[in-house]
Each structure stands twice: as C-alpha cells, then as structure tokens.
C-alpha cells in the first residue's frame, strides 16, 4: 500500500492516432490512385501492395482497391514513386480545396 500521505500520480500516454494532430494538413500534394491501372484493383487479386508496405505513415490499406486515409496522409509521395505501374499520381491539394472548405 502506498503511504496515504502521498498522492499516487501515474502518467502514461494512451495509444492512439493523431499524436501530432491531423497530419494531413502537412500535405501539399495528395496521392490519387487510378484504379484502372492499379494491379490489385484491375485484376481483383492481392498483388504488389507496395503502397501499403512502404507507406511510412500507415495510411494506405491492403485492400483490392487500396484506400488512403487523407486525414493523416503526410503526402510524401513514396507510394507514387514506388508504384510499379505508376497508378498513383500526386495532385496538388489546392485543387480539392473547394470541396474541403464547404462545411
């Protein structure tokens, strides 16, 4: 039993996303996947998934049609660079501003 005269303080972080906030705001260009040339999406089978493997920020899903979590995607562009069929292009985020600001 701890000494009742002292207050026991514990500080432990809780595990969760967004330690640095919504890191999607760091982004200048966002990755856009062209599903007609993406190998898993085109063939309907799990294949390369390099965008998932090499994403530093764990925002690309390992699905037949890979989805990118734009709330946290920092826009580094490794996925676009490493895609074996260049199915991912980096599009300026400003092009999407109108839709994002309408709320």
């Amino acid at each position, binding site marked *: 039993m701890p000494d009742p005269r002292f207050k026991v303080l514990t500080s432990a972080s809780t595990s969760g996303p967004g330690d640095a906030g919504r890191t999607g705001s760091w982004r200048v260009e966002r990755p856009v996947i062209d599903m007609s040339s993406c190998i898993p999406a085109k063939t309907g089978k799990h294949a390369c998934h390099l965008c998932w493997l090499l994403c530093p920020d764990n925002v690309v899903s390992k699905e037949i049609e890979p989805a990118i979590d734009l709330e946290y995607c920092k826009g*580094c562009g490794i996925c676009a660079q490493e895609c074996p069929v260049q199915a991912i292009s980096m599009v300026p985020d400003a092009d999407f501003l109108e839709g994002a600001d309408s709320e």
Partner: protein
Amino acid sequence: MKTTARTTVLNLTEEEFIHPGNRACSGCGLSILYRVGVKALGRDCIFVVPPSCLTVMQGLYPIAATQMPVLNGTFASTAAIATGVKAAMRRLGRETQVVAWAGDGGTSDIGIQALSGALERGEDIIYICYDNEAYMNTGVQRSGTTPQGSLTTTTPFSGKSEVGKDLPAIIAAHNPAYLATCSASYPLDFHDKLLKAKQIKGLKYLHVQTPCPPGWGIEEHMTVALGRAAVETGLFDLYEIENGRMQLTGPSQQLLAKPTLRPVREYLELQTRFKALGDAQADALQAQVDRRWAGYRDRFR
C-alpha cells in the same frame, strides 16, 4: 542451409502496431522500418529508446503513436537499461523481448561503451541501430558514422573530412550472437532478420541504413529509391554474421551475379549533402567500392 521461409508482401500481417498521425517527418525512412519491424517483434516486447527521432515518433503525453511499452533512457545507457529490463523480465519469469532501438549517434558515439559492455556480457537483447548518418533529430549535426565528404550543420563547407566509422565491423569484433545489416528500403528483409534474431539467444545487433529526407537533402518521395540506390551501387552491403560466418543476404547477394554495379555517382548526385564532394573524392569512393566488391566476388561466388 537456408530453410527459413521469406516473408512476402502477401503474407505479412495486416495488424498494425503504430498509429498514423505521429510526429515523424513526411517520407521518414525510420517510420517504414518501425512499422514493418514491429510486425516481426509482435506485442510481447519492451522498447528501450534513447533520445532520437524514434522518441519523437513515439509521441508526447497524452497520446502515444505506439502500442508497445517504451522506456526512454539516456543516450549513454541504452544497452545498460535494456540489460536491466531483461534481468527484471527474467526474474518475473517472462519471455518478453527487450529491444533497444537507438540512432547512429546514440550507438556509435555516445552509447558505444554501454553497448560494448552488453556485447561482452552476451546479454539476451536485440539492439537495433538505425543509421541515418548524423544527429538528425537535433538538426543534422555530424556523427561518428557520417560519411566522408558529407555536409552537415557542424562540418566545414568542404564536408566532413574524416572517414565514418564502420560500426557493424566494430560490433562484429565483439563476436555477437547475431549481426545483420539492413536497409529501410527493404523492410521485408529487415522483418525476416528480426524474426531470425528473435530465435537466437545472446545479443543480436541489427544495423539499418535509414535515408532521412531533411538531413540528406533529398525529396520526400525519394527515401526508398535512395536506400535502394545505396545497396545497388554497392556502397551499403546487406549481410549477416552468424557464428563468425559472414554472408551477403537478399538484395546484396543477388548483386554478386552481376558483373558491374550501378555507379556510385547515381547515389551521390541525388543528395544535396554530397554537393561539396569533388570528382576525385567520388572516384576514390568508386574505387573503394569496386575493390570491396571484387573481394566479395572472390569470396562468395
């Protein structure tokens, strides 16, 4: 001899142990490593981390980007803390893996005496050094492993004049249970080497070259391409040493079959940190790589 099945992108677990939205820079090589490496370690492990980019990545109170317990220690005592944590786990009868994960400054400069002691005692821990070739977390100051000719914020305008330490060779001289070099551009190779290290008793040391976009002066999307260039030009070799026997592994082993490697300049020209490097220095580096690889071809082919 080699019977271990390789992990592929298809059978690599989808379970994630780190969260998005952490403090790592965009395009961080360490993030790729950490994300994929932790999948090999599994949940039953404790990290010991000195001040480094990894400390930053793991988050500040109250949110942590990792799901594993992390003990933040001081620079000089990483391996000593890991020793203590392992001893506590042994006393409690737990099989928990203790993983010390430090940067190149924390390993080659400040933490080397504690690591050397742990190696000599043969502690049953995994020590991972991610080598981004300078003190990146504090703003790109030169470290012991910074290569010759590289620009940092604390080197002359002509670049670092001294030759970088060959840290894996220093560790190899201690005869560790297992030693491997890896690259952030080949995360599956790193994953498999960690799986192997988990099965071995004694100190397992993994040295990982980790491209750093702000520190090396590369574009964020080039992280993986650059690490691959370092391996394919023969500048950074992937090998493992087990029971005193060295062999090239994975991508580096495949290079043995090729008559020539990519020229070193292809790697150097991608980075602004080598812009002070003269032609003579680049040629000398190329000659050095050629000599080393001629030796490898004689030995392993």
